[in-house]
Structure formats: C-alpha cells, structure tokens
C-alpha cells in the first residue's frame, strides 16, 4: 500500500531554507490544531466549491419557475420553493456565488486602496500623513453600512459592480488605518534605515520592506472583512438597493421570505442559516489566524 504523503514530505520538495520550512510547517500544524481555523477553513472551502461548481451541479435554474409555489421542503426540493415556484436550494447555492463574488472583490479593492493610502501615510508622515489620516477619519466617522447604503441608493443603480464599489468605498478606511499604524512602527526599524543607507529608493523600501512586515494583521482583518462584506451585501439586497432580482441573492431572498413568513418559513430560514454559517466561517478563520500568526501564542493549546 502506498504511504500517504505527509506534510513534511511535501515541504521537503520545496526550494527553501530548513528554517523557513519549519516556520511554514509550524504555522500549518498550529492551524490544524486550532479548531477555529480548521472549522472556519472547512466552511469556507465548502462554500467556495459550491459557488464555483454552481453551473455544473445537477440543480435547477435558479431563475426558472420549476414547480408550484410555496412547496415545503421535500426529497425532490430540499429547501422547498418560493412564491413563484423557483427552487430555493438552487437559489441559495447561486446566491453563494453572488455573495462571495461581491464580498471577495469588494475586500480586494478595499485592501488595494487601504494599503496604498495607509502605506503612504505611515511611511512618509508629515503633510501626506495629515491629509490621508484626515480622509481616513472622515470615512471612519460613518458606519460602513450607512455609507454603502447611501452610495448604493443614490449614485449607483443596483448592478453588481455598483454594490462592489459601494462596499469598497465604505470599507477601505479600516484597512488604511491598520496599515498606517503598522507602517508607522515598521519605518522606524533599523533595516529600513539600513536599506536607505545602501541606496534604496522610497518606493522600493515601502513595497519590498515595509509592506511585507505589515502583512500578518492585514490577513486577519481581511478575513473578517469578507464576513462583513457578505453581511453588507445581504443587507443592501434586503433593503432593495443591492443585487436586483431576478439575480438570486441571500438578502433579497430573506426580504421576500419575510413577507411570506407565515405560510412558507423555509423561504427565509434556509438563506438565513447559510448566510450565518458563511459569515461564521470567515469570522472563525480570522480569529483563529490571529492566534496562529501571533508568535506569543506559540505552544499554547486550544
């Protein structure tokens, strides 16, 4: 019988120093032992697989009327049907696709803006910092959801792109603030001075030395940010300014389900539970990664 490949075998094939391998192995080992990361990552992997595989899964078209209205969950229709006779199970899975797509892209753009602004503010300091930190504070004064709601309701008209932009605009300030604080402390470290003395330019120091040293907290917050973005997207759709019907979206399904809560509770329960589990997954991963990436938690058992 062939022996199963262990982690060490895989790592042994990589071109890296023994110490780096040890560090990676250590992080993976600790992630495995960390229940939060394990559960969170499993949920996220399942959700992403469902989202990616939605078009090839043997499920009905989410926008087609396939059955009678208000059918309760059965062997055939696991999550029942909605008021127009569409398959709720299929709509929840296609909704995963929309939610993750919007959340991941929105957080990607937030990170992009946040990292650039925060890095510049923290690294250069002085007037640049004054301007950028002021802008960050301006955005920070509004709750992200309110800002996204205002933008989605007034400027953009319900396309997916508009929702992504709305969430990015309302969410970047948090990343920028985090990045700025990190950059402020890293720029004082001696290797920054040393690379300057060896002739490196500001841009080079910022991106090759300051940024990689700020990554750990950003990874943690990005994961929690995706959870937030999913919630914001669903809330916008719930209020009718997010993803527009007939595109399946968890938030809109919740809204339609609310109106029919008496006669068809499955219409809102299932999207709600899936939304909850997905958000929980990203939050668990974020929290767990915080512990895993924190060297002070080394050796602790959870």
């Amino acid at each position, binding site marked *: 019988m062939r022996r199963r490949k262990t982690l060490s075998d895989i790592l042994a094939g990589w071109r890296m120093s023994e110490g780096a391998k040890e560090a990676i192995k250590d992080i993976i080992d600790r992630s495995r032992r960390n229940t939060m990361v394990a559960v969170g990552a499993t949920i996220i992997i399942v959700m992403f697989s469902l989202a990616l595989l939605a078009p090839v899964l043997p499920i009905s078209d989410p926008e087609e009327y396939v059955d009678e209205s208000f059918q309760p969950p059965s062997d055939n229709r696991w999550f029942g049907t909605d008021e127009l006779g569409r398959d709720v199970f299929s709509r929840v899975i296609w909704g995963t696709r929309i939610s993750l797509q919007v959340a991941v892209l929105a957080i990607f753009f937030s990170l992009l803006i946040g990292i650039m602004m925060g890095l510049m503010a923290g690294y250069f300091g002085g007037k640049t910092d004054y301007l950028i930190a002021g802008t960050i504070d301006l955005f920070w004064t509004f709750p992200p959801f309110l800002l996204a709601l205002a933008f989605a309701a007034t400027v953009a008209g319900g396309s997916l792109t508009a929702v992504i932009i709305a969430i990015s605009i309302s969410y970047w300030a948090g990343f920028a603030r985090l990045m700025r604080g990190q950059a402020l402390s890293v720029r004082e470290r001696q290797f920054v001075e040393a690379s300057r*003395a060896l*002739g490196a330019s500001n841009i080079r120091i910022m991106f090759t030395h300051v940024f*990689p*040293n700020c990554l750990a907290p950003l990874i943690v917050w990005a994961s929690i940010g995706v959870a937030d973005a999913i919630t914001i997207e669903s809330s916008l759709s719930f209020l009718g300014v997010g993803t527009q019907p007939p595109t399946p979206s968890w938030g809109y399904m919740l809204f339609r389900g609310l109106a029919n809560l008496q006669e068809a509770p499955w219409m809102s329960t299932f999207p709600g539970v899936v939304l909850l589990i997905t958000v929980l997954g990203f939050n668990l991963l974020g929290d767990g990664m915080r512990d895993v990436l924190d060297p002070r938690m080394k050796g602790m058992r959870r």
Partner: protein
Amino acid sequence: MIAAGKPLLEIRGLRTQFFLHEGTVTALDGIDLTIYENESLGIVGETGCGKSMTAFSVLRLVPHPGKITDGSIKFKGLELMNLTEEQMRGIRGRRISMIFQDPSSSLDPVFNIGSQLGEVISLHQNIYDKDALKKKTIEALKLVRIAAPESVLRQYPHELSGGMKQRIMIALALSCNPSLLIADEPTTALDVTIQAQILNLLKEVIREAGSSMILITHNLGVVAETCDRVCIMYAGRIVEIAETFELFGNPLHPYAKGLLMAFPKLGEQKEELAVVRGTVPNLMEPFPGCPFVDRCDYATNVCERVRPTMVEVEPGHMVACHLYPKGGGWQDG
C-alpha cells in the same frame, strides 16, 4: 601614512542642525575632516557628540527635523551637497556604504539572506540574471569568510547568530566595492570574542578591497586595534585628530587626556577609575567659546569667550585648544 594617500572624502565646515519646537540643536558645528584613500579613521566621542550624525550627514540621510545647514562634502572631488536625491541614491551603497550598530535589526526579517543581498547587487549593478546574481551573492559571502554560503543564502535572519548577521551586513555593504565604508559602532551589540573577529574581518576586507573606512565608536580599545588615525569629537566639534600611536602616546586636548586617563590599563591596580568631571553642554544654547570649558582643569578666561581653532602641533597632529596657540608650541622651540 599621512601624506601617502590622496584625499577621498573632504568635509569642510559641516554644520547639521535640528529644528525642534524647543529650539535649534546644533548637532554638528563646523566639522573639518579629511579621509584619505586606503586608510581607516576612527571617530571617538561620547554619546550625543555627533559621531553618528557625521556619518548620516555624509550620506545625506539626516533624519527629520534635522538639516545640513552649511558646509561642503567632497567625495573624490565631487560635491555631494549639490547632487539630486536620485544621484545621491547612486552614491549610497555603491560608492559609500554604511553598517549599523545592531545587526539583528538591520536585516529585514521576512526575506532570506540571498534575496536581500541580491536586491542590493541588482539595484546597483543592474544584474538581473538569476545565475549571475547567485554567483555574485556567494562571492560576497565568501569575502566575509562565511563557510557555507549556499546554505546561508537560503536562511532567514532569525536563524543566524549576531556575529553571522554582522558579517552579512558587511557583505551587503561591501557587495558593490564601495570606496568608503562607514561602520557605526559595528561591534557594540556583539560579545567580546565576536567583536575581535568582526574587527579583524573589517580590517582585512577593507585592505583587500583597497577601500577606506570610518569607524565610529566610543571604545578606545577598538580604535587602537583597527584604525590608522583617530579623530576625537566633543559636543559637535572635532577637538583632536592624530595618528593612533601619536594620540595614545601624546594626547594634547584636555578632553583626550581625560578619556585616556579614564581607560583602565592591564595590570594596573586602581581603587577608583579617573573620570572626566561634569556633563556635556546643552547643544541648544550657542556657546561662543570652547565647549569643554566647564569641565576643563586648564580653562582660562579666553576659553569662555573665543572659540579655539584647529592648530597643527606636530605634523598630522591637530588640536583645537587655546593651550596650544597658533604658530606656537613646537615651531618656536
């Protein structure tokens, strides 16, 4: 030794000031210093006397809110003060390099040694070919006597000892054959046996490369071991410059005398070490006279009022003190 080399770096009237809310601190007050080719010069002085600031000023890296307000720095006849920031970047690391006090924090913790060395080499020599770069980095590590360069290339700073890290900093600094290496207290953070190794290494690699070195330290023992000439700084000014042997045998400035007196000698029984009494003057208040006047046993009225100028008492032995009047001393006798 003195007249042998051509001047490599000529600093004239260098003044570096820090503009704080509380007032202006004059960190360097008219530094005149020449470094010749193929020599190593020690700069000695107590904390805050401007040793490191001299180094940063030469590289034009004075930290905010500091500014170089006056003076000229000529490197091989090229006026560094007139260069643009971009031209200056071409000088740093390539023509003039610097190594720092604490090797453990001078290396970036997230990259392995190979990529950090490679970064400097590709930056200054425009080598991007992977194999050529690797060959260059291995050469650089061999230069600093690292036994297994291939494996060290793949290691990260936290896997190396302090001495190894300082060797790598030296390799980084020397990777582009600079004409001048500035070592800012390179051995302070290391233990004594490693200190000796690193100093010997510095001495050897500098000689092999035919470069010059400025060694900044507050340890007179380090200077005695490593340097050809010594420059003693006090409160942002140079008070005495001489060849190492000359200075240790015949210190002229009262501060230099005090420093050497305070240095314990092997085999000597002493109940108490000699001290230089008093503390450094506040650099925020301008003083018209000699900065050492309050701590000096030989101070006279003139020391309070008039700033002493550099006098060449013996050939190559310069001192800034009123005890040695211009045109007096050995010339009269």
